[in-house]
């Protein structure tokens, strides 16, 4: 995307967070009796600009900063967050949180990471755009307008719109703990979403497409996003149900990304130790078809899911979650690692005010050699899946049943749109029956996959 007037302007970097205040909180917690402590500080600014049918619809600007702590008294701990940054108010906040920690049950697995594991230096992963800051209202509205205009102009059956929105944001994260670790980094984000509506006299259908990047200049062209969103709305017109059947299902890249999200969820420490995962005791065994590999890589420069250290200050990394079908690792924070008698994997995630949990960073299924056309071409009768709705995934059993829509495949060709159907199976079988991995891996969010095919699922319809 090129909007010269915007890119010319150097961003004013965000103010650094107050690491002195973080140190003071750690010291204050110790003086109140905490045996170990963590502080997380976050500052963020953003501007969202929306247009609808060519007219300005909304402008939303924000500025926030939050502070969260986790304090330990021996094996007992508590987390807390506040919007106060004044030391006088923080004194009481610290004292109350230490008291809360003391009242909590001692948990043999709780605690900070081993101090030796913290990184000596913070890698520069190019998370903040060096050339563009928050995009001001005028140019932001212009980009949104351009995207929506391209969608509306694409076909006369595009008759309405839910609008287009351009967002830009900038944030800083500071994390410090009583092991002596203190790390800080800045990030940026830019995105454009276009959502036109197609109507051919029958039912209306919405299309939706987006581009998202940490670098303003790397966003896809607004007109291209608009055109894609229009095509996606148009191809749904006239969608119908199909008869209940069993057939192959080809997952488009976004739908396939959802599949590997489910795998990562089942492989995450908290689900495992709670007994709420279908991957319990599966480490080292075959969980996907041979030839399928899934990688979690926190270190890709400039990528949406990259981060230099995790939510507990441990170094992040690149690793195979699944290698040639074999489950190679779980995704663990310190707590779940201790419970499962394994080592933490640098996947602790943190939001202000919450205890650590687990998340992926940049997660992707390694591309194969087939083009999407070859994969669709291999199906005599089946579904090309482009949308899923609902939450019908049971992570305890792997049972999977979700609302679906897409195109029906007849003799290797996309024949007509389908909707109001479900696809069902069990994730354990679905993963083992993945075949024909596509070559079309594109990064538009922090989880990505090429097109994949599942040999057979139950499709419920009329």
């Amino acid at each position, binding site marked *: 995307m090129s909007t010269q007037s915007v890119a010319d302007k150097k961003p004013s970097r965000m103010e650094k967070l107050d690491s002195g205040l973080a140190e003071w909180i750690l010291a204050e917690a110790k003086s109140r009796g905490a045996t170990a402590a963590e502080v997380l500080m976050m500052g963020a600014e953003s501007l969202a600009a929306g247009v*609808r049918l060519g*007219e*300005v*619809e*909304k*402008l*939303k600007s924000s500025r926030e*900063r*939050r502070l969260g702590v986790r304090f330990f008294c021996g094996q*007992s*701990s*508590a987390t807390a*967050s506040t*919007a*106060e940054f004044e030391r006088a108010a923080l004194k009481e*906040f610290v004292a*109350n*949180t230490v008291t*809360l*920690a003391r*009242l909590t*049950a001692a*948990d043999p697995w*709780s605690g900070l990471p081993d101090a030796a594991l913290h990184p000596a230096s913070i890698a520069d992963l190019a998370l903040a755009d060096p050339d563009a800051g928050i995009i001001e209202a005028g140019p932001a509205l212009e980009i949104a307008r351009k995207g929506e205009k391209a969608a509306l102009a694409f076909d006369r059956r595009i008759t*309405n719109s839910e609008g287009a929105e351009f967002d830009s944001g900038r944030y800083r994260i500071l994390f410090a703990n009583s092991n002596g670790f203190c790390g800080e980094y800045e990030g940026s984000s830019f995105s454009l979403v276009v959502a036109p*509506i197609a109507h051919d006299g029958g039912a*209306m*259908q*919405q299309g939706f497409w987006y581009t998202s990047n940490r670098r303003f200049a790397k966003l896809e062209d607004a007109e291209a996003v608009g055109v894609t969103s229009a095509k996606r709305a148009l191809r749904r017109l006239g969608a119908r*149900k199909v008869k*209940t059947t*069993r057939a192959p299902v080809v997952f488009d890249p976004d739908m396939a990304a959802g599949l590997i999200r489910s795998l990562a969820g089942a492989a995450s420490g908290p689900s495992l130790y*709670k*007994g*709420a995962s279908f991957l*319990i005791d599966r480490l080292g065994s075959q969980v996907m078809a041979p030839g399928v590999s899934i990688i979690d890589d926190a270190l890709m420069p400039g990528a949406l899911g990259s981060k230099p250290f995790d939510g507990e200050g441990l170094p992040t990394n690149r690793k195979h979650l699944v290698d040639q079908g074999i489950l190679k690792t779980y995704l663990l924070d310190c707590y779940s690692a201790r419970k499962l008698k394994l080592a933490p994997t640098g996947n602790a995630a943190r939001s202000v005010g919450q*205890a650590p949990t687990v998340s992926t960073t940049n997660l992707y299924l390694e591309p194969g050699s087939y083009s999407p056309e070859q994969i669709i071409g291999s199906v005599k009768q089946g579904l090309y899946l482009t949308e899923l*709705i*609902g*939450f*019908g995934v049971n992570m*305890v*059993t792997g*049972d999977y*049943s*979700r*609302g679906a*829509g897409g195109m029906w495949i007849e003799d290797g060709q996309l024949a007509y749109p389908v*909707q*109001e*159907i*479900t*696809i*069902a*199976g*069990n994730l354990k079988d679905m993963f083992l029956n993945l075949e024909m991995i596509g070559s079309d891996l594109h990064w538009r969010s922090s989880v990505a996959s090429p097109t994949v095919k599942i040999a057979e699922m*139950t*499709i*419920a319809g*009329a």
Partner: protein
Amino acid sequence: MANELAHPEKFFSNRFGMSDRAFERILGAALERKADYADLFFEYHSAESLGLEESMVNHTSKSVSHGVGVRVCAEDRTGYAYSDEVTIDRMQLAAEAARAIADQRATAPAVQVGTPMPRHALYEVETTPLEIPLEERARLLREIDAAARAYDPRVKNVMASIAAERKIVMIVTSEGKLAADVQPLCRLNVTVIAEDGQGGRQSGGFGGGGRVDYKYFLDDDRWRQYAHEAARQAIVNLDAGDAPAGEMIVVLGPGWPGILLHEAIGHGLEGDFNRKGVSAFSGRIGQKVASEFCTVVDDGTIPMRRGSLNVDDEGTPTSRTVLIEKGILRGYLQDRMNARLMKMKPTGNGRRESFAHTPMPRMTNTFMLAGDSTPEEIIKSVKHGLYAVSFGGGQVDITNGKFVFSASEAYLIEDGKVTHPVKGATLIGDGPDVLTRVAMVGNDLALDSGVGTCGKDGQSVPVGVGLPTIRIDGITVGGTRA
């Protein structure tokens, strides 16, 4: 704190050192361009939660957040800016940012703040869980753990939590009106994992709450019912067979299965989608969209309910809105902006997640009124079908009207009798069509136990649903057994 809460309209002035004169100045600044109106939304939110895992109460967390948002509305345009620093300077900056939505200069009208807006008194809560000593709440969680484990030896793990929050909000409008409210909310949740010893593992869950006193959980041993219900569901599901696939008769049990209404029609009747003409229900007021057995309302005025509010987040008192009356579409859910643009009345459904969000039309408690049939008659009338009594989440595509909701406890109906449990399955249907297939409505209307959270455009708000037992003659069940 207690004294502050008796007069919530004074809370922000006292705490952040502000006056009506300051609000007038900020609102005046917000209206320096040609706009219809402006408002300020103040929020002070405190929350605390306590969690048990493996028989230990090992999670506690506490949070306090506050902030203010300035909104300027001009025709169908919204300018919004917020800050978590509640100071005059920040509000002035926010007013300048928000008014950028309006393009023509105007003479700022003289705003005179002072008229209090009416509000209901639906939740005069005396002792929320926030005021109960931590040790007492922890003991309750341990008792829940013991009760769930005692229910059946196949119960292997129990997770339980008590979450409580208090929101103090104040809305000041450019018409000079001021509304304030203290909104308590709490929820007790139990999740159980059961194992059959042969490699089979299942989970079950139950919870409840509302804008209630802590005592609510102790009354009638409610906490024990939650524990037993979660354990029972996990055990039932250990024996569940494959769910059927295809279109069939489905009987929905009372209470939480009302999520059907929330997804199938509720969202589609929100004013914003209808003003823009992007809902499958757009332009259909007065038309038949359900069988004559169906009357559906959204009611934000039921005492103590999770979805109820004394005033919505724009200061409008909540109300009871008839959405469908004996099958005929009657009304939309409105916030101020969409009501004004559609020349309708606001219904008190303008809600927002927090000061960091703009209000939108949202549901409160959405339910179908009771009919005449007994639940037994309804089951007995079905030769072959599915009986679904508990659900997880749902979702809807507003524009084409297709919606889903996922059963977490369901049984086959064979020859008029409820027989084998089957695995959870997603049900999919068409919003404007599904209620036309309602053939019987039970006399057993129940509201859910108080666990619903609705997401829209990235904003979550607490809601309620309700339903009597109903029979739907034909909806697609997404099982695996084709």
